[in-house]
């Protein structure tokens, strides 16, 4: 890996900051000279070459205009442009003992609109990514039912289907920062989040088909991975909006998202939406599996813990600017962010520039759907002043996103999950953005 020494990095940052207000040509020459100063690193050399060429810019005509492009199906399954190769999932390796039981994060600083491309949806595995053959996969439904059955994928897809757009979020999203800031970029502070169109069968349709006992109270969902990951789902949710999903964003589920079939519980913590779903057992009590006792329970300051803490409460974060997207110039900027709530629809988002002393209402943009990522924006004219940027969402249940101090006053700092507090970015005079907490 190329790595700049701390000094070189600082130098480059200073050079860039100084160049920010210069006219284009002057800036390029200035930057070039600056980079030559730091020559000796491979990075600086390649960057210098980069900036030296303007053969594609007007009045010149670029090479792609003066040549023939590729034919159809030269790429039968299309990929993003090669210039977008830094838009990828990333992980923080020290978080977990092994990549098989770990998590990666969505590059939400690069996302537009509300849909997360399937290949960028964060991953969470408890025993690695299984390679499931759909022809040899079965979904078994049994327990307190009249007719226990096994379904092939073909059977499953013959049930009437529904498509919904909902967010999917790990309850540990942001959970590394109960004790203080640890993550230096938006992808890591909030990237255990995605929003897709999901297509499948309502679980209630399948439960009607097998005929459940009047005493049924819970459904155990189980995956076909090496963890045979399990969660107990209350029957009220199962009969309400839970889906058995086989497609995502118009195509079959990605392996990372549970191919060929997963459960999907809208608005609830991601781990309840069991991937690689192989079994649904109907019962009268919860099973108290490992992932609903040892994990995914929220320890309170008195030593007691909340169980079955399913809902992902109202949340929001500013995505531009953010550490990955600093303010490179003074002037008018569209400040943008995303908000979401597992209780329902985002009604309003407020933005503060002074660390929560005063707030202004932002505009909601594009599709505003229940239990989905909702985009907000506000135009600002930034003249280099330092700011403490915050956003605060309000959903249609009336829930207002709390401050971290409010959450900690009730929950202390050891609950790991469900940290949905107002997030603060510190914008410095040079346009750089860093992750801070306010006391």
């Amino acid at each position: 890996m190329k790595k700049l020494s701390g000094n070189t990095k600082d130098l480059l940052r200073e050079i860039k900051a100084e160049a920010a207000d210069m006219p284009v040509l002057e800036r390029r020459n200035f930057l070039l000279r600056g980079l030559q100063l730091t020559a000796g690193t491979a990075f600086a050399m390649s960057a210098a070459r980069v900036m030296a060429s303007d053969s594609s810019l007007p009045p010149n005509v670029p090479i792609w205009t003066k040549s023939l492009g590729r034919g159809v199906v030269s790429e039968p399954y299309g990929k993003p442009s090669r210039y977008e190769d830094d838009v990828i999932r990333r992980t923080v390796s020290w978080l977990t003992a092994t990549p098989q039981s770990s998590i990666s994060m969505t590059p939400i600083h690069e996302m537009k609109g509300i849909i997360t491309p399937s290949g960028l949806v964060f991953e969470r595995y408890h025993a690695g990514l299984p390679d499931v053959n759909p022809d040899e996969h079965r979904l078994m439904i049994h327990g307190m039912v009249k007719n226990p059955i096994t379904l092939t994928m073909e059977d499953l897809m013959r049930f009437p289907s529904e498509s919904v757009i909902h967010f999917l979020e790990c309850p540990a999203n942001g959970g590394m920062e109960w004790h203080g800031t640890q993550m230096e970029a938006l992808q890591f502070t909030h990237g255990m989040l995605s929003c897709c169109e999901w297509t499948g069968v309502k679980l209630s349709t399948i439960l009607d088909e097998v005929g459940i006992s009047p005493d049924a109270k819970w459904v155990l969902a189980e995956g076909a991975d090496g963890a045979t990951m399990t969660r107990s789902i209350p029957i009220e949710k199962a009969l309400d909006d839970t889906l058995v999903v086989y497609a995502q964003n118009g195509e079959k589920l990605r392996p990372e998202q549970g191919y060929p079939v997963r459960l999907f519980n809208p608005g609830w913590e991601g781990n309840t939406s069991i991937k690689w779903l192989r079994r649904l057992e109907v019962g009268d009590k919860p099973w108290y599996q490992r992932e609903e006792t040892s994990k995914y329970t929220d320890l309170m300051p008195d030593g007691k813990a909340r169980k079955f803490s399913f809902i992902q409460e109202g949340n929001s974060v500013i995505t531009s600017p953010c550490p990955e997207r600093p303010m490179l110039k003074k002037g008018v900027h569209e400040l943008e962010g995303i908000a979401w709530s597992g209780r329902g629809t985002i009604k309003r988002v407020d933005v503060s520039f002074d660390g929560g002393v005063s707030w202004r209402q932002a505009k909601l943009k594009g599709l505003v759907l229940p239990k989905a990522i909702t985009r907000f924006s506000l135009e600002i004219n930034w003249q280099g002043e330092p700011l403490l940027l915050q956003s605060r969402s309000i959903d249609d249940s009336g829930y207002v996103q709390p401050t971290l101090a409010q959450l900690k006053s009730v929950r202390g700092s050891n609950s790991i999950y469900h940290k949905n507090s107002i997030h603060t970015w510190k914008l410095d005079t040079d346009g750089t953005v860093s992750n801070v907490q306010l006391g």
Partner: protein
Amino acid sequence: MFNWDNKKLSKAILFISIFATPQIVWSQDAGYYGLGEPATKSEIAGWDIDVRPDGQGLPEGSGSVSHGEELYDAKCASCHGAFGEGEGRWPKLAGGMGTLNKAKPDKTVGSYWPYASTLWDYIHRAMPFTAPQSLTADETYSLTAYVLYLNGIVEEDFELTHDNFTQIEMPNKDGFYVDDRPDVKNPACMENCKDPKTIKITSAIKGITPLDHVSQKQKSNKKNSSEHDAQNSNKQEELSKESSINIGRDIYGNSCAICHGQGVAGAPKFGEKLAWESRITKGLEILKQHALEGYTGESGVMPAKGGNPSLTEQEINAAVSYMIESIH
């Protein structure tokens, strides 16, 4: 214009008129769609592995603390530690009593888990990490008994059985209550919400998150074609230089570290000279062959391709080279 003759066309119309009006469905009873096959008792028995706190799902069988200790030392201690203390970031299983309301709570089986059934169920379904669903019911009883013993919940001579299982009481059985959120109310103040003088900043801990992509992005904000050509050729050079090391490290992390990281199942531990010496004397080619095709030695078993058949020979070689270069 379509070039159908009249005969074909009339057949087509006939076909449509017979099949174009399916019955419309009004109500839904059990079995209405008639989809799937009945799940037989033996099919269900093969997959229905869950165990509830009331003992539902627990198979016949038994196991002792002493047998559990043998199994634990062979199959579990390399990750969970000889006394359940947890190696590295692997889960700690024992201890931590009385710490749940402290600044640094220690959530173990003994201090936190409310039911012994969860322990039995989880060991049986998902452990050992590299070989889930490989333990028999009796082995699972033994290991459960031993982990309970490590936590002081049962005595050294205890035998756990199907019949005495539900009598086990976990120390933290009353430690949980159903989620009672929303638990805070933010009044959504708009003006003069706090005194600006009281705002203090806790700054970020620097240098612990991977940020190369952020600094690179910011350095090359203006892009043009030759930039990408330059970047590309640069990338190629880098790849050829570093690819073997990088590929080897990635493969190791994803496929080999589970066993070789801690020395699980007799695997030579990563970086440990003593463990590797005798292997290296056999020669690099033999090592690569064993890694590729699998090998059964005195201390343990190396599965072919480390149990990951999707790896190529080149990737296996890179991983072996990386592991050998990392010996000190």
